[in-house]
């Protein structure tokens, strides 16, 4: 039972729960207070002073932090407040690198919108501009401190949500910037490339390392057979870039757009997700039967894998040796597919479209080239795909729906749900009984592993073998669980970890929604709906029933966990030092 207080905001009487803020109370009364640094649950520190209000105190207070109280009288819209906010914003703008026309966040910038909303027509101050080098040495993330407004959202998500803490505010006064210790490039830090910093950034200070130029180049090279694969979460969010409501599934239009861009074949990474389930399910069954290293921990999320390499090197043997679906698919395309189609693998150029910035780093791992060629040649984020579609002048909304190409385009519902937290676990549990006994058992829908709760558990029993499973998403949550595993306080056989909160649907490569949307809507849950809708729409929903996967085993890989599989579909990991001293 929560208690309420009554306060007055701009002459309106408002009832608000004890412990809530003036910002929340005003919102419930339909009064919008401008914010810049505020991001619900992630960054509530009152740093930017855009949300100042008059609460009758000697100075204006930050509404995002000021608690409501009985009888409080708040004014949010007086000439003095408007002028103070404007001056504050003009001061921020006076030192901001205002190259808006060529900024990655042009037309999707919270600072731009604020300048418009506050009716700033002139910047009365001329401030000194920052002149810091751009850090573009990471395979995944580019940091441009000259565009930073010091809101600290990236610092908070990195430190508090992901517990990576690769960046922090350093120095003081005008010299303050967000940086890594000793200004090391991100690539030399324990940064896991998850890109959560990018999707919370209100401006263009953080972006992915673009692969667009190299993909255009490949597409215009007639000697190359350029194919593309798309991860499940991409179809659940790409529509947002073209004005569709959040959670709209645009699979057919996405495939049509990729064909228009000139890809020779458009494949579905979900097919490889089904293959992953066969390999990883078999690995689990074998480890259980042969007293192998348990719990088995999933290895699809490259952000999580790098996190484990930095922070839990002692648990690397628990990681599944399976490559991620992206890289399994690449290896299949450059071996089985190349052979079947009679194409020289040297001429096959594999592009993946991923909801993920860490996939760009994964793609560059030297060990992921088991055919003698890199499994995947270039990775585009969902955002980059949208940029290419726009650049090509494709009218996305009016495209007809098209189907993925044969022979690799067949996927099951189990493959689709890889894109959301709990999905890999659910897909595995749909197939594990079959892999153990040769018979299907249990429900298709395993709803206990769905949803955005931080830790989800499931238990299945097949032929007297009990499998206790756990699902975590967000690396801070993973850290808590892994500490228990390390201490011997957890008795799970199988653990799914996804680096991003909510899983891939909320990945660092997904369309950027401003705080105004993120404060109101749970992106994780909305985008997940699109994934589960596609799962339900598919007739085959268990990976081991995917006819294409069965055919691949029959014609090429022989059996899951077999010799060829181990050569092409499995990998190994390396312990990584945090902040190596040169």
């Amino acid at each position, binding site marked *: 039972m929560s208690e309420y207080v009554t306060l007055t905001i701009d002459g309106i009487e408002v009832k608000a729960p004890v412990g809530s803020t003036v910002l929340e109370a005003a919102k419930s009364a339909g009064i919008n207070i401008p914010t810049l640094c505020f991001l619900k649950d992630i960054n509530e520190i009152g740093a930017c002073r855009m949300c100042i209000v008059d609460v009758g105190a000697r100075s204006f207070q930050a509404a995002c932090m000021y608690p409501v109280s009985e009888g409080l009288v708040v004014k949010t819209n007086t000439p003095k407040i408007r002028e103070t906010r404007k001056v504050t914003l003009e001061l921020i703008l006076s030192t901001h690198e205002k190259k808006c026309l060529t900024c990655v966040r042009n037309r999707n910038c919270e600072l731009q919108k604020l300048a418009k909303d506050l009716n700033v027509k002139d910047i009365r101050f001329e401030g000194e501009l920052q002149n810091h080098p751009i850090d573009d040495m990471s395979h995944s993330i580019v940091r441009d401190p000259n565009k930073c407004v010091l809101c600290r959202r990236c610092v908070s998500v990195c430190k508090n949500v992901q517990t990576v*803490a*690769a960046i922090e505010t*350093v120095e*003081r006064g005008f010299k303050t910037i967000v940086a*890594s*210790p*000793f200004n090391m490039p991100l690539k030399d830090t324990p940064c896991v490339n998850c890109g959560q910093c990018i999707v919370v950034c209100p401006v263009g200070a953080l972006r992915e390392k673009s692969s667009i130029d190299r993909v255009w180049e490949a597409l215009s090279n007639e000697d190359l057979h350029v194919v593309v694969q798309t991860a499940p979460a991409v179809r659940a969010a790409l529509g947002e870039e073209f004005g569709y409501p959040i959670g709209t599934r645009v699979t057919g239009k996405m495939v049509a757009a990729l064909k228009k861009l000139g890809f020779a074949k458009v494949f579905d990474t979900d097919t490889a997700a089904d293959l992953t389930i066969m390999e990883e399910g078999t690995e689990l069954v074998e480890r259980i039967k042969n007293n192998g290293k348990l719990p088995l921990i999933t290895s699809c999320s490259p952000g999580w894998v790098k996190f484990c390499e930095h922070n839990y090197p002692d648990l690397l043997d628990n990681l599944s040796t399976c490559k991620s679906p992206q890289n399994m698919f690449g290896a299949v395309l450059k071996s089985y597919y190349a052979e079947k189609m009679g194409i020289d693998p040297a001429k096959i150029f594999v592009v993946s479209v991923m909801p993920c910035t860490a996939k760009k780093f994964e793609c560059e791992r030297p060990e992921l080239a088991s055919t003698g060629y890199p499994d995947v040649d270039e990775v585009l984020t969902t955002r980059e795909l949208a940029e290419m579609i726009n650049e090509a002048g494709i009218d996305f909304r009016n495209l007809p729906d098209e189907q993925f190409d044969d022979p690799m385009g067949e996927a099951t519902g189990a493959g689709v749900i890889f894109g959301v937290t709990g999905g890999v676990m659910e897909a595995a549990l749909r197939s594990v009984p079959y892999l153990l006994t040769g018979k299907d058992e249990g429900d298709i829908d395993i709803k206990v592993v769905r949803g955005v709760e931080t830790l989800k558990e499931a238990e299945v029993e097949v032929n007297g073998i009990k499998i206790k499973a756990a699902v975590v998403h967000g690396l801070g949550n993973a850290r808590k669980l892994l500490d228990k595993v390390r201490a011997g306080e957890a008795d799970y056989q199988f653990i799914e970890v996804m680096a991003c909160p909510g899983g891939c649907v909320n990945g660092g490569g997904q369309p950027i929604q401003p705080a105004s949307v993120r404060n109101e809507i749970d992106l994780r849950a909305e985008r997940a709906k699109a994934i589960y809708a596609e799962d339900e729409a598919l007739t085959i929903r268990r990976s081991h029933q995917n006819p294409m996967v069965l055919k691949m085993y029959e014609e090429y890989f022989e059996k899951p966990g077999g010799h060829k599989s181990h050569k092409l579909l499995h990998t190994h990991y390396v312990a990584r030092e*945090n*902040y190596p*001293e040169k």
Partner: protein
Amino acid sequence: MSCGCCCTDNKSQELDKIIAKYKDSRGALITVLHEAQEVYGYLPLSVQKRIAEGLNVPLSEVYGVVTFYTQFFLNPKGKYKINVCLGTACYVKGAGQIYDKISEILKIKGGECTPDGLFSLDACRCVGACGLAPVVMINDEVYGRLVADDVPAILQKYIDQEAELAKA
């Protein structure tokens, strides 16, 4: 075993003791940094890393605190610590040019130390000798009413002094 950098066995053991002393007290970071700097003279990456691990605080946070406060140093100080007063009186009397001249001759920026460990350069606030503005202090010696052209001779004095010492 020595790691070959600034830290010898003794220093390393002292650092361990400092960390052990404050390991379980919250908010001890600044105290630990102070004590560690007393041991090492400055706070290099290797020391900050051990403090971060020992106190279970991210290195980024340690570095953030070190760079926030002016009393923590990232670089060792030289045998001769040059402090150029950039207080108001000295500044209007041209201390900026003197600072730049020293920086140019020694090829170091403020906060840095020459590779031979002889000189380090810092800016400081009013030393209370405004009548002598602009003022430079080298260790405890005060040089007043300077112009940029005085700088080479002053530095040379210390270089010669070192050469004498080396001969002896």
